[in-house]
């Protein structure tokens, strides 16, 4: 963890705030996310998790505050802007097309073309696309069926892995996962969590948003607790017990002393 702190944050949020009319959804939240780190973002319903997630994804503009990627301030006007800056958000909808296979989904909308005259006559470079996905399978040890399997035939966990793999194979070093284990069975959850652990060892920064304490405690190195739009805790996972986490989320405990958080 100390090594991670010495590195520069790949994604830094500085004093982000967002109000919807009279409701202050997020109040001046700052957060640094480091490479090779899984940060759990937790909070009760209405704590501001979704709003913060959407600001990172570029679908909501913050009222005030800054988002920095690799130390550079970024303006996210749209989801495409965020993606271009290297921040990929995987929402629960997953954005997969059931009628297409895994390779087709991973390259959907960004198909590789062979060199040729004009875009209309250029053909897709199917071989390279398949090879790239196959390499990704080997690099991350993806527990997925054959790359030509239709996504419609995959289980929920496998679909989640495909959606995350798409983000990583496109070179994103910051992946924001919105409730990736919601509505998954035990085995399926294991598939997703072990993939997230793989990502950490490949130096990808992961923001893991979840309701599920067990899952957060299993994969997160650091945890950020939101409550009523404010950040109430940001520190190492190992310093907390599940009870502490619940206390923070529900407001039973307002903060932990630095001594306890580091000890």
């Amino acid at each position, binding site marked *: 963890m100390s090594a991670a702190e010495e590195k520069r944050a790949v994604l830094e949020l500085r004093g982000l705030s967002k109000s919807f009319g009279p409701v202050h959804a997020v109040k001046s939240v700052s957060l640094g996310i480091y490479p090779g780190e899984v940060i759990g973002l937790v909070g009760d319903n209405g704590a501001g998790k979704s709003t913060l997630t959407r600001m990172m994804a570029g679908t909501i503009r913050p009222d005030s505050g800054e988002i920095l990627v690799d130390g550079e301030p970024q303006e996210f006007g749209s*989801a*495409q802007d965020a993606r271009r800056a290297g921040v990929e958000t995987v929402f629960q*909808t997953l*954005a*997969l*097309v*059931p*009628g*297409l296979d895994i390779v*087709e989904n991973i390259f*959907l*909308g*960004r*198909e590789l*073309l062979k060199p040729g005259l004009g875009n*209309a*006559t*250029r*053909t*897709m470079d199917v071989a390279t696309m398949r090879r790239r996905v196959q390499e990704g399978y080997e690099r991350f*040890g993806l*527990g*997925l*069926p054959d790359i030509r399997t239709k996504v419609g*035939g*995959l*289980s929920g966990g*496998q679909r989640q892995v495909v959606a995350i793999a798409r983000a990583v194979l496109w070179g994103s070093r910051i992946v924001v996962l919105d409730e990736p284990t919601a509505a998954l069975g035990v*085995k*399926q959850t*294991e*598939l997703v969590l*072990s993939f997230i652990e793989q990502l950490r060892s490949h130096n990808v920064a992961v923001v893991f948003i979840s309701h599920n304490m067990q899952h957060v405690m299993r994969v997160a190195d650091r945890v950020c607790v939101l409550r009523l739009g404010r950040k109430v805790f940001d520190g190492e996972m190992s310093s907390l017990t599940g009870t502490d986490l619940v206390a923070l989320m529900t407001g039973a405990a307002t903060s932990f002393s630095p001594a306890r958080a580091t000890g």
Partner: protein
Amino acid sequence: MTRQQILCWTQRDGLLFALVLLVAIFTFARSRFLTVPNITVILLQNAVIGLIVVPGAMLILCGLVDLSVGSVAVLAAVVFGQAMESGLGLPVSVLLGLGVGMAWGAFNGYLIAILGFSPIIITLGGLAGARGLAEFVTQGYTTYGYGPEFALLGNGKLLGVPVPIVLFVIVLLVGLHLWYRSPLGRHMIAIGGAKDTAAELGIPVKLVPFWLYVASGLASALGGLIVASQLDGAAVTIGTGMELEVLTAILLGGVSFTGGRGSLFGVFFGLLFVGVLSNGLIQINVSPYVEQVAIGAALCGAAALDMLYQRLERLQVPVETEPAEPVAQGAGEAR
């Protein structure tokens, strides 16, 4: 696994198998069935429908439909005929006819793809409206006699192959390129199967269907002109029932009417299946009334089979994923 492979095979190539079987039966019954002249006749009879089927199948893959094809065909033919009557000359008249088709397609595309009107209602309106307009323009009179040059479009031959077949093959090849080798095919499946996702990934979910409607209008107009050339007259009866023939070939070819699933090869086989069935039944002296019944039965049969495949596909999902998981975890632990 073998059951699954059989399932895959019948789903993908079942129609081809049925087509081969049909050809075999007719060849057995009539030795002249499988000869070059008869095959040419079958292709020629279906070339015009085939032209329109290619963009039509793409529209259905996107989850849309164009019912106005036959009426746009007659409107294009009639506008061409009127232009010839008023002495505008052949090239201008042909361009006017094709232009009317594209304009109608653009109108359909604007309302449906851009503004989000119901495709069935708008093109059903076009089905009535365009034919009505054609009748209004001509007041029911048929213009005729466009000269030998225009006759080449319907009756001419290029290297021994009738021109309509050549045009159909060109359109089919362009369609196959777009469907299988360019990203458009995947994009159309995405638009038809999961439109919101497609939009999220930056696929032009409005422009693709818009241009497909324009292409459908253009193909219909070309079809109308070919028929006008074959008849040497722009009769107001051109294109009657054409939308049903186009839809039959597409749906028989296994394109899902709700979009997101289908193959252009399948559609081509569907087109040939209908062509072979009607030609063969006439050859074995079956009443032409029965022919329509047979095509209807084939379509219903295809729909029933499609339903069965979808059921079986859904059933096989848990069977397929169960064994995949321990393997996946084992691979993870081994590392």
